[in-house]
């Protein structure tokens, strides 16, 4: 028995650890550090229909126990991702979750339709929560009706299960999660970054050229845990949790809250080996806690 095996819609995960979208590019760079087949899955960088340059630099700033980013969905565009990036990843025995973004519902539909046809793409992650683009992104993720509409439109065309990535910058995340569930989503991924800002002491201007950016890293973990805890008790679709994970203990905390798998973002920048390290650290931690299979941890904080 593989005590880390988790099965989710479209995804047979040999372990529940995967790099989060935007923090792992399309895998090439990290493949120089370790064998990507070790990973449970890979969430690739957001893909839009057309190539995008993203925002001006500086695009990152440091904050206490966290960082701000305003990359702005830079990516080579659908065609190049399908023709160059995904084929590169074929050599690894690892399911790909394609992060899909756009400025209009049509954009999402277009990308979803094409990218879901690629054989190693086992699921989509609809990015309706990017705080760093002027159009689309977060605007789709903060209103239940809009979130419903884009999810439904994508579900209609996708050849693989659809996960929707939630924004934490909302008053009532349960309401949005439920709308997305009603629209037919197969799962949720959460959380994307919190909107934040840093100003330079000397110039008084924002450090990020974009002004605001998305806050990630350990600083946001308590917010992520709270949201996974709330949402998991109010939907019947699985959740891939993320936000500040950097240790096997953090992984279990997300499981306890109600996640069925965990994505790792910022921690990849701190330690390029973090994902395989977490995978290796989990079994001894389960031993220490007397847990047979990691799936027993899902929702343990609220399950009777």
């Amino acid at each position, binding site marked *: 028995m593989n005590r880390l095996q988790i099965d989710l819609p479209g995804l047979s995960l040999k372990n529940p650890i995967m790099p989060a979208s*935007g923090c792992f*590019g399309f895998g090439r760079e990290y493949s120089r550090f370790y064998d990507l087949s070790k990973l449970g899955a890979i969430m690739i960088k957001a893909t839009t229909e057309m190539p995008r340059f993203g925002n001006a*630099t500086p*695009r*990152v700033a440091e904050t206490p126990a966290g*960082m701000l980013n305003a*990359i702005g969905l*830079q990516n080579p565009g659908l065609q190049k991702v399908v023709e160059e990036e995904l084929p590169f990843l074929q050599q690894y025995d690892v399911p790909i979750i394609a992060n899909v973004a756009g400025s209009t519902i049509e954009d999402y539909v277009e990308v979803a339709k094409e990218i879901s046809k690629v054989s190693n793409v086992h699921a989509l992650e609809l990015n309706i929560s990017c705080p760093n683009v002027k159009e689309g992104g977060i605007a789709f993720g903060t209103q239940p009706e809009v979130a419903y509409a884009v999810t439904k439109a994508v579900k209609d065309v996708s050849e693989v299960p659809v996960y929707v990535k939630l924004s934490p910058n909302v008053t009532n995340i349960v309401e949005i999660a439920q709308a997305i569930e009603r629209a037919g989503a197969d799962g949720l991924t959460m959380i994307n970054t919190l909107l934040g800002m840093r100003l330079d002491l000397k110039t008084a201007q924002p450090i990020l050229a974009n002004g605001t950016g998305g806050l990630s890293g350990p600083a946001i973990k308590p917010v992520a845990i709270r949201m996974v805890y709330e949402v998991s008790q109010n939907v019947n679709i699985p959740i891939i949790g993320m936000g500040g994970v950097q240790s096997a203990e953090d992984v279990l905390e997300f499981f306890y809250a109600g996640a069925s798998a965990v994505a790792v973002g910022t921690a990849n920048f701190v330690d*390029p080996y973090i994902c395989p390290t977490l995978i290796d650290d989990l079994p001894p931690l389960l031993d220490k806690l007397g847990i047979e299979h990691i799936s027993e941890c899902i929702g343990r904080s609220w399950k009777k």
Partner: protein
Amino acid sequence: MKKAYMNIVSHEKIARNIYEMTLQGELVSLMNHPGQFVHIRVGDSLDPILRRPISIAKINKEEQTFTIVYRAEGKGTLLLSQKKIGDLVDVLGPLGNGFSINTVPTGEKALIVGGGIGVPPLLELSKQLNAVGIETIHVLGFQSKEDVFYEQQFLSLGDTYIATVDGSYGTEGFVTNVLNDNPFSFHTVFSCGPTVMLKVIEEKYSTNYPVFLSLEERMGCGIGACFACVCHRKDDPTGFTYRKVCTDGPVFPAGEVLI
């Protein structure tokens, strides 16, 4: 490119707020090109969380050591400055492309222009150029006398001119004052320093000489995965083609990217 804990074998202050640290470990066997950098974790705490990119200033293969020179100014570098001999430092590297010394034909001279904390990587560059018989001229700019470092080390490699903004040492003003006053002859230009300086160097020399510039940009991963450090290509200033400073750079031939 690897991640390793390396041992501090020396660490001292060499100018105002400027520290020189020498680290030992096997990682050094991977270090070859001047202008490459390492990405350093200054502590185990989550605060600060990001690594700091710092250039390799000297490589000593025999002793398996390399040297960095950094300015202790912000949170991370101040913490780094408190480390003691014998402490371990988490180093990721070597990263980036580095300067290519092959671009200078044998018998030709290289002009090396550095500003402030851009000076350190130029020392290893100058050493490697001299090692293959290429003469180097060094023009180095600093704020003030207290900020000057490595003058002797550059002098031992070739003619060295210092400019200080306040005139307290060497020529008063910027490196351009030295460059305008002296009719140097050379084949290639290498430069590292503040962006304003790099722009001037590019404008002044790139039409007539091969020019290589080492850029700085705020980084996330340092290895090409996060798209934090991209810049536009000069031939496509508003398009979506790009170069990453961390992997395509930090050294670019003048004219390749928009600075």
